[in-house]
């Protein structure tokens, strides 16, 4: 059996300029650690906080909604499994998450993302406030504001890629670019 090569892995990460990557259970403690490590990334404190905010929203989506779950001893419940990575190019930080979702959840997610991507800044703000006033959705721990917040904080549309995973699930990849210049 061929062993996993840390060296090759490190070279791949370096080539893609990946500064942070986590794969596994997105427990509360993992979130806190990722958050802390991100705070010092870029020069601007405002941009650091935006990266942090987007990563936390992605991580919490995985925690609550990933269709692949594992039991966390510490949290005392099943928690979502997925991947979050932060990379960069010359102009942007690129934050990407990946996790399984049920196939039937794909169309509404794409529809919502397209709708949000189509709004200008003022409409986006109005939509955020309108959604925040709505009552909490039954059985959904999130606020249903994550996508809107990501677009507002990044100033760019969110990008979605869907890959086949198995008969009932798709692999959902979400990317957000954050401009390095304010």
């Amino acid at each position, binding site marked *: 059996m061929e062993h996993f090569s840390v060296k090759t892995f490190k070279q791949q990460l370096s080539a893609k300029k990946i500064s942070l990557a986590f794969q596994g259970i997105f427990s509360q403690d993992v979130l*806190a650690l990722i958050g802390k490590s991100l705070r010092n990334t870029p020069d601007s404190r405002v941009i650091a906080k935006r990266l942090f905010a987007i990563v936390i929203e992605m991580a919490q989506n995985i925690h609550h909604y990933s269709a692949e779950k594992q039991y966390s001893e510490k949290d005392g419940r099943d928690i979502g499994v997925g991947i979050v990575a932060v990379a960069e190019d010359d102009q942007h930080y690129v934050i990407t998450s990946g996790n399984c979702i049920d196939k039937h959840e794909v169309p509404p997610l794409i529809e919502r993302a397209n709708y949000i991507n189509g709004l200008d800044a003022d409409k986006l703000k109005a939509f955020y406030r309108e959604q925040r006033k709505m009552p909490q959705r039954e059985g959904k721990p999130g606020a249903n504001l994550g996508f809107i917040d990501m677009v507002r904080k990044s100033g760019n549309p969110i990008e979605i890629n869907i890959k086949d995973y198995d008969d009932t699930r798709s692999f959902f990849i979400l990317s957000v670019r954050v401009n390095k210049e304010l």
Partner: protein
Amino acid sequence: MENFHIDGSTYIPRIDFNAETGVLELEGESYHEYTTEFFGPIFSWLEDFLEQAGREVTMNFKMSYFNTSSSRRFLEILTLLEEYQNDKEGKVTVNWYYEENDVDMLESGEEYADDVELTFNLIAY
């Protein structure tokens, strides 16, 4: 009535609600995974506190980060206070502190100020 206190931690804000002075403070970071559970006791305390009419209440938010789920809870707190002012002769002042240059935290404060009819101060520190 007892005061309400929670020590802050990495993802939990410091909470200091003083029943005698009416000064209610939330400070730090808020991104607990289960905000409904976390904020449950906070709302219970607030509802008891707001039973008594005519209180003078100062609500201080001094947050450095909060997630979207907490943002919804904060609006619920402000809405409770707005109802208190309208229905129970309460006098409510909200102080929204934001770190100087934190344009996003300032904007969050401005949006809350627009969402509720309360005396709302935006204060840079």
